C-alpha cells in the first residue's frame, strides 16, 4: 500500500492566513470564553485581527501553570458514573460477520478491495463469523452485562446491488433475529447504517460517494431500515467515521475503494456524506420520529493534539487547525452553523464544494446527539491526520472538552473507543486493560469535573475481527477469536473481565484502601529523616580507606567536609565495625539495601547470588560481634535495611501475574529476609523456581549453599526489620532466558499511566506500603519494624506539593498498618534530608540547603504524632526523659570537665598534702633541734612531755 498521497494531510496547507477575513464566531468567543482571555488577551486580539480564526476550543490548550500535580481534578477519580449510564460494546458488520457471499449477500467495496489491494490477506476464512454464530455473540454480550450493543447493518447483505428493490430474505432474517434477541435480553440496539461496506455495484455504476446520486440511494436504504427495524431501534447512526471514508478511501487510498491523490474527490465525498446524513435525518425526523420516538446521529471520529509549547499562540493555532481539519470538517456543518469551518473554506477554495444557504439550513442541527469515535484508526498511520508539528495525544478528556466548547455542550455518546493489541496477544491483553482504564477514567473526570454530558460509552470492539488496512495483524476485541478454528469460540480476554467489573460497579471503587484514620503513633515512636551519606565529594567511590586527611564536617554550617591542612593520619585497614560511637547509637543498620548492592555484581546471576551470600555472612558476623561485645553495655539493636517495594499483579485476571508478583517479592526480599529472620536458608520458592528454569535450559543459576555453621551464623541475626519503601510495581509474568538475576525472576514491570507518578516515574501508591508491612508480618512474625527510607522526587524547589501529598498518604497508610493491622512499627524515616546536584530531587532541602515547604509539613506531622483528632491529641511529655537522665546526661556532657576537675582536685590535694607533710616534718625537725639546744631541767621536762 503506497501512502504517497498527493494531498499529504489536509491541514498542512492552512498555515497561511488572510488579514481581511471576518468571522462571526470570534465574537462569540469574546462573549463566553473566560479562561483564555485573561491569560493571553492581547496576543489573542492581535492574532484574531490577523487570522480571523474561530474556535472556542482553543481555550483547552491554555494550561493553568499553577495547577497542582496533586489537584483532585487531575488525579485518578474513584467515583461512579451517573445513574443509568449507557454501557455498550460495538462491532462493524464487515469486520465480524464473515460469510461474504453466502445466502444471497452481494459483494461490497471492501470485499473487492481485499482482493485487489490486500492480496496477502486470507480474507475468506479469517473472520469471527458472526453471521453464523450469532448465539455466541449474544452470550458474549451477556457475559459483559452491557446495556446496549452497537452493530452495523451490512447494506449489501440486505440489498446485494445497493438499490432498494427486493430485500435479501436471509439477510433480513439475520438482523430481525438479532434485534429480537437483544430485546429479549433487554439490551438496547444502537444501529449503524453504513460502516464502510458500500455495495460494490454502487461503486462501479456511480463511482460511489463521489456521485451525488448516492444521497438519494442511501436515503432509500435508510428509509427501508427505519420501516423494518425502527420499532425496535431507538438509536440510529447513519455513517461511521465519514472522515476516514473520504480521507483514506479517496485521499490516501488505504481504504476501499482505494482511490488516491485526488483532493477534489476527497472533499466531494465528504460533501455527499454530509448531505446523505442530513437527508436521512430529515427523513427520520419527519416520517418516523413521531411514532418511533428514537434519536439519530452520525459518528464522527478524531484524534487529539497538544501544542509543543502551550504558551505559544502559533502552536495553539496549529492544534486548532489540526482538529478543525478532521473533526470540524463534519462537525461544523452538522453540529455547528451548517457550513464548513472558515479556515477550510479559505484554504481549500474551490476544492471544497460550497453549501448553498438552503443547504446550510438543511444540514445544520441534523444530529440528536454527538456520537464520537476515538480510537487507533484516527491515529495511525501518521498520514491519517494533520499533525502540523504538534504532539498527538490520547487525552480523551481534553477532546471532550473541546467538543463541549466548540459545539455548545452537546450530549455525547462515545460510539467507539479503545486501543488494539498485536495479533499474537490472545486473552491476556494486559495493556488493553490499562488503556481502557485510562480512557474511561478520563470520561468519568469529564463528566464529574468538566460537566460534560456524556451519556454512553461503547467499548470497541466486542470481537476480534478484520481491522481494515491492518487486516488480521491487530486485534481489538474484548473477546478473543481464533480465526483458523472451526467453531470460532469467543474467549473473554482480561479486558472483557475488566469492562464487566466496571459496568457492574458503574465506575471505579477504591478497593485497596480503607477510609483515612484519625489517630497517632505512640510517644516513643522514632520520627526521622534519612540522609544517604557524608562524603567529601559527590562521587561513587571516595578513597575512604586511603585518604589520610583529616576533615571537619559542617564547620560553617554548609554541611560540607572541610579538609584540615597539615595533618596526616594513618589510613586504617578495611574494617568498619568497631561500633565506636556505640553508646550514642541505639539502631545500627549494617548494610543499606544489600539486595541492591548485589545488583552491581551482574555479570552472571551466580556472581549476584555469591555477592549476596557474602553480604549476608558479613552482616551476620557483625551482628555477632555486637551481640558478644557491645550489646550488654550499649543496648542497641542491629539489622540491615532491605529495599522493599511492594508488587501487585499487573493483570489481576491472570493467575500467572499473581504468581509473578509473589515470586518477585521472594526474589527481592525473602532472598535476604528468610535466611535472617526465618530459616537460615534461602527461600524454597526461589530455589524451586531456579531449579525449574535450569531444567528448561533457560539459565544455569545456582544459589550458594549455606553450610550448617553458616546457617546457624546467619539465622536470627537481625533485631528488627528495616525497610526502604518507595513505590509499588505492577508485575507481569514473562519468561526470560539468560543466567542473570533480572532474568531469573521471569517478570516484567508495567507502569500504570493512570497513577500519579514522580518525574523519575515512581508511582505514588500509598496502600502498597500497608500491604508490604502486612506481608512482612505474615511472613516473619511480630517483629519490630522500622521504615528506614520513604520518599519521592519532586521537581518543585519550593512548594513541593507532590512530596507533601506523598508523605501524608504514606504516613496515613503506615498508621493504618500500626493501628488496624497491629504491625509493630517503631519508626519512620523520611527520605531524604538534602538532595544532590543533578540527581532526582528527593530532598527536603535543595542541594544548596534551601528548605522546601515539605519541611514544615513534616515538622507538623511529627509534632502531632500522626493524624490525631481534636479530642485525642497525644500528650507526650518531655519530662520523663529529662528527669530520668539529668544526671547522666550532665555527666556525659561534662565528662572531660569532670575528668580534668578530678585531676585538678587530686593534684591540688596531693600538692597540699605534700606541702603539709613537709611543713610538719620541718617543724618537727626545728623543734627537735631546739630541744637539743635547751638543756633539760627536771622541772621543764614535764611541761614538754
Amino acid at each position, binding site marked *: 500500500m503506497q501512502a504517497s498521497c498527493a494531498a499529504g494531510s489536509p491541514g498542512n496547507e492552512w498555515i497561511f492566513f488572510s488579514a481581511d477575513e471576518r468571522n462571526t464566531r470570534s465574537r462569540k468567543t469574546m462573549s463566553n470564553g473566560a479562561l483564555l482571555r485573561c491569560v493571553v488577551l492581547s496576543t489573542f486580539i492581535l492574532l484574531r485581527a490577523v487570522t480571523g480564526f474561530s474556535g472556542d476550543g482553543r481555550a483547552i490548550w491554555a494550561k493553568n501553570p499553577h495547577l497542582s500535580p496533586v489537584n483532585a481534578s487531575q488525579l485518578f477519580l474513584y467515583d461512579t458514573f451517573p445513574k443509568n449510564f449507557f454501557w455498550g460494546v460495538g462491532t462493524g458488520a464487515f469486520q465480524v460477520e464473515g460469510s461474504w457471499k453466502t445466502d444471497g449477500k452481494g459483494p461490497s467495496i471492501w470485499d473487492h478491495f481485499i482482493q485487489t489491494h490486500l492480496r496477502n490477506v486470507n480474507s475468506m476464512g479469517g473472520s469471527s463469523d458472526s453471521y453464523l454464530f450469532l448465539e455466541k455473540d449474544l452470550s458474549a454480550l451477556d457475559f459483559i452485562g452491557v446495556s446496549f450493543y452497537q452493530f452495523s447493518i451490512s447494506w449489501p447483505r440486505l440489498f446485494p446491488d445497493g438499490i432498494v428493490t427486493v430485500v435479501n430474505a436471509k439477510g433480513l432474517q439475520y438482523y430481525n433475529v438479532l434485534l429480537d434477541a437483544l430485546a429479549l435480553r433487554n439490551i438496547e440496539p444502537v444501529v449503524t447504517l453504513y460502516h464502510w461496506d458500500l455495495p460494490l455495484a454502487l461503486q462501479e455504476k456511480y463511482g460511489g460517494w463521489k456521485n451525488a446520486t448516492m444521497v438519494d440511494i442511501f436515503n432509500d436504504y435508510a428509509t427501508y431500515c427505519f420501516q423494518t427495524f425502527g420499532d425496535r431501534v431507538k438509536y440510529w447512526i447513519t455513517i461511521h467515521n465519514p472522515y476516514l471514508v473520504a480521507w483514506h478511501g479517496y485521499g490516501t487510498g488505504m481504504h476501499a475503494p482505494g482511490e488516491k491523490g485526488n483532493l477534489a474527490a476527497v472533499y466531494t465525498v465528504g460533501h455527499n456524506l454530509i448531505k446523505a446524513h442530513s437527508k436521512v435525518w430529515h427523513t427520520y425526523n419527519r416520517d418516523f420520529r413521531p411514532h418511533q420516538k428514537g434519536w439519530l446521529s452520525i459518528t464522527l471520529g478524531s484524534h487529539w493534539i497538544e501544542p509543543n509549547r502551550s504558551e505559544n499562540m502559533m502552536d495553539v493555532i496549529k492544534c486548532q487547525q489540526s482538529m478543525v481539519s478532521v473533526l470540524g470538517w463534519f462537525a461544523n456543518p452538522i453540529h455547528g452553523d451548517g457550513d464548513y469551518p472558515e479556515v477550510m473554506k479559505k484554504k481549500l477554495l474551490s476544492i471544497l464544494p460550497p453549501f448553498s444557504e438552503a443547504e446550510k439550513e438543511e444540514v445544520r442541527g441534523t444530529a440528536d446527539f454527538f456520537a464520537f469515535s476515538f480510537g487507533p484508526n484516527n491515529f495511525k498511520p501518521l498520514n491519517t491526520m494533520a499533525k502540523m508539528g504538534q*504532539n498527538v495525544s490520547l487525552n480523551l478528556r481534553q477532546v471532550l472538552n473541546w467538543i463541549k466548547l466548540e459545539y455548545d455542550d452537546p450530549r455525547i455518546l462515545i460510539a467507539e473507543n479503545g486501543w488494539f493489541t*498485536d495479533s499474537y496477544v490472545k486473552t491476556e491483553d494486559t495493556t488493553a486493560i490499562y488503556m481502557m482504564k485510562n480512557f474511561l477514567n478520563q470520561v468519568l473526570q469529564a463528566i464529574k469535573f468538566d460537566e460534560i454530558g456524556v451519556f454512553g460509552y461503547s467499548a470497541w470492539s466486542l470481537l476480534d475481527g478484520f481491522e481494515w488496512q491492518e487486516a488480521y495483524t491487530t486485534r481489538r476485541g474484548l473477546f478473543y477469536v481464533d480465526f483458523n478454528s472451526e467453531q470460532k469460540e469467543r474467549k473473554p480476554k482480561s479486558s472483557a473481565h475488566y469492562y464487566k467489573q466496571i459496568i457492574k460497579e458503574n465506575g471505579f471503587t477504591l478497593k485497596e484502601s480503607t477510609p483515612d484514620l484519625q489517630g497517632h503513633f505512640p510517644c516513643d515512636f522514632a520520627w526521622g529523616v534519612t540522609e544517604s*551519606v557524608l*562524603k567529601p565529594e559527590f562521587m*561513587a567511590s571516595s578513597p575512604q*580507606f586511603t585518604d589520610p586527611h583529616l576533615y571537619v564536617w559542617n564547620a560553617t554550617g554548609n554541611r560540607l567536609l572541610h579538609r584540615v591542612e597539615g595533618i596526616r593520619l594513618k589510613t586504617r585497614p578495611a574494617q568498619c565495625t568497631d561500633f565506636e560511637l556505640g553508646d550514642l547509637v541505639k539502631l545500627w543498620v549494617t548494610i543499606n*539495601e544489600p539486595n541492591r548492592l548485589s545488583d552491581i555484581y551482574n555479570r552472571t546471576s551466580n556472581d549476584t547470588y555469591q555477592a549476596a551470600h557474602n553480604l549476608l555472612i558479613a552482616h551476620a558476623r557483625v551482628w555477632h560481634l555486637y551481640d558478644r561485645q557491645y550489646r550488654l553495655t550499649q543496648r542497641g539493636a542491629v539489622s540491615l535495611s532491605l529495599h522493599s517495594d511492594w508488587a501487585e499483579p499487573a493483570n489481576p485476571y491472570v493467575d500467572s501475574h499473581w504468581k509473578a508478583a509473589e515470586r518477585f517479592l521472594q526474589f527481592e526480599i525473602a532472598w535476604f529476609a528468610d535466611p535472617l529472620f526465618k530459616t537460615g536458608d534461602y527461600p524454597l520458592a526461589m530455589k524451586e523456581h531456579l531449579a525449574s528454569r535450569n531444567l528448561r535450559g533457560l539459565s544455569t543459576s545456582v544459589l550458594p549453599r549455606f553450610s550448617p555453621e553458616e546457617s546457624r551464623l546467619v539465622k536470627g541475626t537481625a533485631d528488627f526489620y528495616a525497610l526502604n519503601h518507595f513505590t509499588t510495581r505492577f508485575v507481569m509474568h514473562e519468561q526470560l532466558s539468560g543466567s542473570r538475576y533480572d532474568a531469573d525472576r521471569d517478570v*516484567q514491570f508495567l507502569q500504570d499511566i493512570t497513577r500519579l507518578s514522580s518525574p523519575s516515574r515512581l508511582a505514588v501508591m500509598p496502600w502498597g506500603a500497608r500491604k508490604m508491612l502486612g506481608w512482612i508480618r505474615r511472613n516473619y512474625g511480630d517483629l519490630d519494624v522500622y521504615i528506614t527510607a520513604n520518599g519521592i522526587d519532586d521537581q518543585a524547589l519550593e512548594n513541593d506539593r507532590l512530596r507533601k501529598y506523598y508523605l501524608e498518604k504514606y504516613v496515613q497508610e503506615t498508621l493504618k498498618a500500626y493501628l488496624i493491622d497491629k504491625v509493630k512499627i517503631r519508626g519512620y524515616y523520611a527520605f*531524604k534530608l538534602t538532595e544532590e546536584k543533578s540527581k532526582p530531587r528527593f530532598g527536603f532541602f535543595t542541594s544548596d540547603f534551601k528548605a522546601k515547604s515539605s519541611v514544615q509539613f513534616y515538622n507538623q506531622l511529627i509534632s502531632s504524632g500522626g493524624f490525631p483528632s481534636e479530642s485525642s491529641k497525644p500528650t507526650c511529655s518531655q519530662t520523663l526523659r529529662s528527669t530520668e537522665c539529668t544526671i547522666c546526661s550532665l555527666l556525659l556532657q561534662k565528662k572531660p570537665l569532670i575528668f580534668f576537675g578530678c585531676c585538678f582536685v587530686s593534684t591540688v590535694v596531693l600538692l597540699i598534702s605534700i606541702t603539709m607533710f613537709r611543713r610538719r616534718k620541718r617543724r618537727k625537725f626545728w623543734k627537735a633541734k631546739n630541744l637539743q639546744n635547751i638543756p633539760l631541767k627536771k622541772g621543764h621536762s614535764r611541761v614538754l612531755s
Partner: protein
Amino acid sequence: MWRARRGCAVARALVLATLWLAVSGRPLARRPRALSDQGPHLHYGWDQPIRLRHLYAAGPYGVSNCFLRIRSDGAVDCEEGQSQRSLLEIRAVALETVAIKDVSSVRYLCMSEDGKIQGLVRYSEEDCAFKEEINYSGYNVYRSSKHHLPVALSGAKPRQQFTNKSLLRPSYFLPMLPQTSEETREQLESEMLSLPLETDSMDPFRMVDDVGLVKSPSFQK
C-alpha cells in the same frame, strides 16, 4: 605560688584537651562512609576498548584529590572539580596498555625522556602509551614501558627533572564515570516525561518496561 600552680593546671588541661580532640576527631576522617561500592572493575567498563573517564588522582604522593587535565598548551595539571575539561578518552592500544587523550584539548598524555609528563598533539607509541596497572588498593598506576617511569603529578609547578628516577613515586588514579551535567539530565528528564506517543504501538505510553531493572532512590550511582 597559688597562681603559678593554677596556670600550670590550665596548661595541662589544654594539652589534655588537644589530645582528646585529636582522638575523638579522628573518626570524622576515617569513619566509614556507607558509599556504594562500585564492586569489580568490570563495572568500569574494562571490557570496552574505548572508555570516556575522568582520572581522579587519589594520592598519597604528590597532588591528590583532583582530576587529571591536559591543557591546550600541553601542560598537564590537576583540577579540583570534575568537569568537561577533565574528560579523558582512555583507549586500549595493546594488552594492558592504553593511550590517554584529553577530549577537550585533543592532546595525548605523553612522557618525555626525563619522565616529565606533557600533552602532545601527536600520538607516539613509545612516549604516549602507558601500562595500566591495578594497585592493591584498587587504584591505577600508569607506567611508561619505554622510560620505566610512572605517571606522577607533583606540585603545582611543572615537574622538574628527577635526578634519581627510582625516587619517583607514582600517582594513584581512579577512573571515574563521566557525570551528566545538570542541564543534560534535566533535558533527559523532561524528555522522558513527554515522550511522544507511539501511536503505532499497542503500548503507546510505553507502560511495559522490557528492561525489568529495580532501582532504588537510596542506592544511586
